[in-house]
Structure formats: structure tokens, C-alpha cells
């Protein structure tokens, strides 16, 4: 074992000891006060005059592989969930009375008037929470950190490779704002994919572990834990879009723009981005015209939100894009797909006329699949539905509930209009779970 590795292991162990020592202090703080401090720090990332935001925007583009323009939009969207107001709503959404996190609360149980005892309840967060994140979507680490602190759990967090800057800046700003709360967070980065030994050491002794990542990463960490450890997994999922025929009869430009923006946000890397769009056929519906409008929106976005290009990887990305587009061109020659793309820009729109398996489209790309009825989509997707997270929709208002029930029963956990698809609110049911309730255990006194 190398000297560096020994030093890293020692640092992780020291951090965990310090975190556990910080717990009594944060347990004694009212949760409303904690939310207030976190919100004040979070709001700094939305303030254009704040040095913290400027530092974040200086470093985000190269780290998260986003252009400066897109990094600003992403930061605005994520930081909207870090305000005092947003965190207050989050607490109230998760707990009928947030004071449940501060101590025992007497609960009136309806229908149990004859009961001799009135139970008291208390929500208890982990004594040590370790969060292992991955990927290059910025802001995931800060969300994770906030959730842990709101349930008063000292937290060691390993952010994703493209999310280190924001997580570290937030933790540092928190220490400046409130040393006591700041001491309950440690941010360490290591390559989770390669360095299993460090991950193993990090999660040892934790009573809650949260993992964001691929199925492989999730399973790998899960295998390191004892049964007594609470394990929360946010494994990779994907987003789809659905468009009802009734939405394609009038002006489609705005809808095309909303869809294109939902795809381009996070450079199509987020589970909240639609990768395939199911469009309902109709007599007077022109799916092809809609595809062209989306392509035009992508073209405009290439100026408004340019893509980040690392010069060292530019040739590699061009080669990969060329592989996929040329393969699709062969299908196009056979008449089974129509492709529109941006040439040197990395956007591609593929309208599929036949049931085909196509290669993964890198960059800002969208597959459009016409369907007879949107209700057929879950059966078309089959077992893949279990991996759906968000369903972006544009359908008549009176269809929304039925569609939501259908997709929800098939596996999706979020059904949302396209213009709200990219940034779920702080209080969303993340992959179908309450983000705070997933972390706590209940104590009842009978």
C-alpha cells in the first residue's frame, strides 16, 4: 500500500472521528435554525454579486464540462432549491411537524380515542451518514449535504468527479457561517470507480450510506455494508417525454423549444433529461414538422447555451459522434429513420419510423418515436419502465391524471411538464422517496 493511500485512509478515519464528535452539538440545535443557516449559505449561490457564486462559476465549466453560459443556468436552477424558503417547504413536506427532528412530539391518533396511551414520536437521523456520489451533474453533492444536515446527521460526502467544486464551496461557506454546523460535514474526493478500498474504509462504521451512481457502483457499495446499515440508492435512471396529438395542432414552436431545453440542460446527462420523445399520431399531426422545430431550437440553443468542448477530447468526441450518425445514416438510407443534425454542433434529432435498435446518441440528442396512443408507451418500453425517473409531458389537462397513473404504475416516479423537467423542487420525492424521510428512523413512545 502506498504512502499516499495510507495518508488518504488516515484522513478519512480522522474525518469520521471528528464528525461523530460533532453530533451532540447539532442534535441540540433546532432544525428550523439549521435550515435557516443552510438557506442563507445556499442563497449566496444565486446572488450575482456574491464572491461564492463567482468562484463557483469560474471553476464549474472545466470541472462539470459545461459552457459558462450553461453553467450559470444550471447553478441558478439548482440553487433555487437551496433557499431558506425552499428548505422550509421541504421540512414541512416531509414532516407534519418538523419539530419531530428536535425531540419527542405527542401525536393525536384519530380513531384511537379509547387508547390508554397517546404515543409520542421522534425522527432520528443517522449517527454518521456517508454519501457517495458520482458523475458530472453539479449540485447533487450540495443537495445531499443539505438533506443530511436537516436530519442532523454528521456527514462524510464524496462528490462526483464533476461536482467537487460546488460541494466544497458550500461546505467551506457553511463553516464560515456556522462553525458548529460546518464541523458536521467533511468533503473528500476519491475515484469511487477505481478506489474501492477508500470507499470501503469510508463507509465502515456508518449507520446510513447513500449512493448515487450506476447500478454497478450501487451494488458494489451495498456489498460492503452490514445489514444494520440503512442503505439508500439513487441508481441511474432515465427520462422520457410524451406529447399528445392535441398539443401538435396549433403553434408548436414553444413546445419544441421547451423540449429542446429539457434535453440540452445538463448536456443531456441528467436523469431528468428526456432521451426519447413519444409523439402521438393523428390525422392532422405532422410529427416530422415537430422534429424540424426541435432541430431549429437546438440550433438556436447552440448559440445561447454553447456546449463545452475540451480541446484534448474534441477529436475523440467528433469520432464518436461520427460513428453514431453514420450508422443512423445507413438506417436512413433504408427509409426507417429520419435524422437531422447540427454538423459540427453536437445536436442530433432522429425520427424513427420503424422498430429499431439504434446506438446511443452522444451530445444533445433526441429520438422521436411516433406512437398510435401514448397509453401504448409503457408496453413498448417493457421492463425498461422500471428505470424511468421523469416523464416530461405535453398533453391536454384532462389527460394528465390518467397518464400519470399509467406511467406511475409502470415504474416512473415523476410526471412533469417539460418546462419544469430539469429542476425538481427541493421537496420532490426523489426516485419516489421522501428525501429526508429516507434518512431517518422513527422512535415511538407508547
Amino acid at each position: 500500500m502506498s504512502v499516499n493511500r495510507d495518508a488518504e485512509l488516515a484522513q478519512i478515519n480522522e474525518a469520521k472521528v471528528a464528525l461523530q464528535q460533532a453530533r451532540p452539538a447539532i442534535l441540540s440545535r433546532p432544525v428550523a435554525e439549521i435550515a435557516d443557516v443552510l438557506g442563507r449559505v445556499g442563497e449566496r449561490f444565486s446572488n450575482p454579486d456574491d464572491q461564492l457564486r463567482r468562484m463557483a462559476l469560474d471553476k464549474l465549466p472545466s470541472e462539470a464540462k459545461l459552457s459558462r453560459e450553461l453553467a450559470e443556468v444550471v447553478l441558478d436552477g439548482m440553487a433555487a432549491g437551496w433557499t431558506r424558503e425552499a428548505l422550509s417547504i421541504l421540512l414541512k413536506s416531509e414532516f407534519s411537524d418538523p419539530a419531530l427532528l428536535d425531540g419527542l412530539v405527542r401525536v393525536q391518533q384519530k380513531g384511537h380515542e379509547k387508547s390508554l396511551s397517546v404515543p409520542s414520536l421522534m425522527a432520528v437521523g443517522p449517527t454518521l451518514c456517508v454519501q457517495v456520489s458520482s458523475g458530472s451533474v453539479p449540485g447533487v453533492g450540495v443537495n445531499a449535504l443539505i438533506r443530511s444536515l436537516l436530519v442532523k446527521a454528521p456527514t462524510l460526502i464524496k462528490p462526483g468527479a464533476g461536482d467537487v467544486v460546488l460541494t466544497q464551496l458550500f461546505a467551506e461557506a457553511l463553516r464560515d457561517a456556522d462553525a458548529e454546523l460546518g464541523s458536521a460535514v467533511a468533503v473528500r474526493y476519491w475515484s469511487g470507480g477505481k478506489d474501492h478500498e477508500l470507499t470501503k474504509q469510508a463507509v465502515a462504521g456508518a449507520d446510513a450510506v447513500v449512493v448515487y451512481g450506476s447500478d454497478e457502483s450501487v451494488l458494489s457499495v451495498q456489498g460492503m455494508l452490514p445489514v444494520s446499515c440503512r442503505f439508500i440508492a439513487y441508481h441511474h435512471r432515465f427520462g422520457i417525454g410524451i406529447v399528445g396529438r392535441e398539443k401538435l395542432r396549433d403553434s408548436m414552436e414553444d413546445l419544441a423549444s421547451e423540449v429542446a431545453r429539457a434535453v440540452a440542460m445538463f448536456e443531456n446527462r441528467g436523469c431528468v433529461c428526456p432521451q426519447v420523445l413519444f409523439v402521438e399520431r393523428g390525422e392532422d399531426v405532422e410529427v416530422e414538422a415537430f422534429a424540424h422545430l426541435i432541430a431549429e431550437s437546438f440550433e438556436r440553443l447552440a448559440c445561447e447555451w454553447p456546449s463545452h468542448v475540451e480541446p484534448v477530447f474534441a477529436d475523440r468526441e467528433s469520432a464518436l459522434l461520427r460513428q453514431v450518425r453514420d450508422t443512423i445514416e445507413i438506417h436512413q438510407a433504408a427509409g426507417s429513420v429520419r435524422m437531422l443534425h447540427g454538423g459540427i454542433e453536437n445536436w442530433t434529432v432522429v425520427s424513427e419510423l420503424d422498430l429499431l435498435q439504434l446506438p446511443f446518441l452522444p451530445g444533445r440528442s433526441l429520438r422521436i418515436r411516433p406512437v398510435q396512443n401514448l397509453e401504448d408507451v409503457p408496453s413498448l418500453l417493457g421492463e425498461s419502465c422500471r428505470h424511468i425517473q421523469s416523464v416530461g409531458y405535453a398533453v391536454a389537462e384532462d389527460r394528465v391524471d390518467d397518464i400519470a397513473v399509467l406511467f406511475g404504475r409502470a415504474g416512473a416516479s415523476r410526471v412533469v411538464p417539460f418546462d419544469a423537467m430539469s429542476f425538481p423542487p427541493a421537496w420532490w420525492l426523489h426516485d419516489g422517496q421522501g428525501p429526508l424521510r429516507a434518512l431517518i428512523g422513527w422512535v415511538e413512545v407508547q
Partner: protein
Amino acid sequence: MGVSGGVDGLEPWKEKAFQGLAQEVFGWQFELCAPYRSFCKQRGVTPSSVSDWREIPAVPTTAFKYVNLVSTPYTSISRKPDAAFYTSGTTLGSEHRGCHFVPRVSLYRAAFHQPFRRALLPDVEEIRIISLIPSPISAPHSSLSWMVGMAADAFAYEVDWLVQPNGEWTRGPFDVLRAASEEEEPVLVLGTALAFLHLKEAADEPSVSLPTGSRAMVTGGFKGVSRAIGRSELYSTITDYTGIARDRIVNEYGMTELLSQMYEPVLTEGTRAAGRLEAPPWLGVRVLDPTTLEDQPEGEQGIISFFDLANLGSVSHVLTEDLGVLEEGRLAVSGRVPGSEPRGCSRAMDDLMSGGGRL
């Protein structure tokens, strides 16, 4: 175009000779491979419109995963192809493995024979082969296993197959290597980069020194595996665990989608040839501007494309996703950069489609 020497059938061809055959092959493939014909027509290219083989449309290697690219006058019912080679599986699952149907393996054998001999056996007629690649009987859909099988048939007086298709050893590799090291006759050790890494892990003591004149062929990279090491570290590993010096280690570059191979001619030219691959005369090699697909000037990096006349039964002009540089007719393949692509929290759609969807 590759540069070769000697009188072993690998002498450089005149451009006109390659041109004529390339156009003839294109005419054959245009006629017999319907998806390729449509593709070429869409690009406005037909056999009669082509005056230079470089104008013939290239198909991307990715297309072999999704399109049936076979050029044969026979149907699969009237005469089955001799072989179907699949690319190694990755996270995409078996449905998305590239497939190269080979109507006649005789051409594969012919394309393989002399370049292999020149690169690996310029000084001996026969040799003992120790293969860290599964046998073609155990891995009938691996073009690499077929290749080693052809080498064994043509050049080996004894073969040890040490690896099973699942990557496990058929027997203790160092028992075999140690026994070979006690003989006088040199051996040829063949393996993928990953197989040599596994060999290192299987070592109980790094003391084997194979007989003088032994050599190794290493091929492939680390696609689909979580580990990766640099080329020099890999070669040091081979030297440490087999005793074969750097100037006896030959890198082979090939792919399932091509029936011809390229080699570093270090056995004949020494280590100055390291990292510079030599193509046989029937394999046209180009390095293209990633944006325009025009030929790059000598020495500039670009996307590698091949025109392989041995690919008669599929499509000859193939655009790879590899980057490289051409200098003095030799090809240097740029290393892949593991993890270079930004990754988010979204799964890939095509990854999912193998899970039961019929999208």
C-alpha cells in the same frame, strides 16, 4: 497505404493495382449488400461514379452492431457463412455486440498468414505457442481466437491453450511457463493486454525466464474493463513475468470488423519500430480530419479508416472510432483516454433496450 519489404508477398503494391481491386470489391459489395448500396446511393456514390477508392463510402465500425453487412451471393439458407465473429461484450449486452459475418474464412486465412509470419516468426519455421487467448473451439465467435487457431495450425509444433472464454485459467499458467523456460526451444506467447495483467496476478514468483529467442504478441486494449495501465507498464509487466525483452514484444492491431491485421515490426527492425504499425499491401490506411473527413497531413492526428480488401464478404471501407497518426506509411494509434467522456446520472437508452423493451 502500408509499406512493406522483402519477398514474402508483402511487397508494396502499386497504387493502380490497389485502386483496381478496390473498385472491383466495391462493385461486388454495392451489388450484394443492400443496406450498403442504399447508403452509398444516398451519398450519391455508385461503382461507376468512383474514380478513387478514397471516394468509396466508409461504414462506421458501430454499424456492424446494428446493420447486417454481408456481401455474398448466397442466402443464409442456401449456404451459411463460414464464421460469424462478434466483438467482445461490454455493458451494452450481447444484443449490441458487433457482428462480422465471414462468408469464406479462406480469405481471412490468406490475409493472416504472411503478415503474421513476417512480424512474429521471421527467423523460425515453427515454434511452440503458449496462448493466453481462448482456443477457437472454445470461442468460435471470436475473430482473435480464430486467428490464434490459424497461427497454431500453420506455425506451431505444440500449443498450450491456457485461458477459457470466461477468463479463467485452464491450468496454472506459471506451471506451463516454468516448464517451457527449462527447455531450449523458444516460445511464442500470445495474449491480450488484459490477459497479461491476469498473468501478473497469477504469479507466485516473478522468476520465469523463457528461452532465448522467445517472443510475445500483445493485442487489444482495456475496453469494457475497469483497469487500465500504460503501454510501457504493460510491456514491463510482460518482461518481468516472462523474461521476454521489449524488443521481442510485438504489438498487433486488429479488430473484429477487419480481416487484416497490422503489427509493429520490432523483431526485424528493433525497438525503433515500436508504436508504429505496418499494414499489409491489401490494407489501405488513412487518417482523417475528424470534422471534414479529408485526409490529414502526414503526422497529424485524426480518425483512422481502413480499406481492407480481405473484407470482401462484408464491407471493405471501415471508419473506426480510434485516433491515430500516419508517418512514413506507418500508423501510430493514439491511446484511449479512460473516463474522458463526461458522465451524468442518466442511463443510456440502448443499454436499457436489451433489458426487455422493444423500443
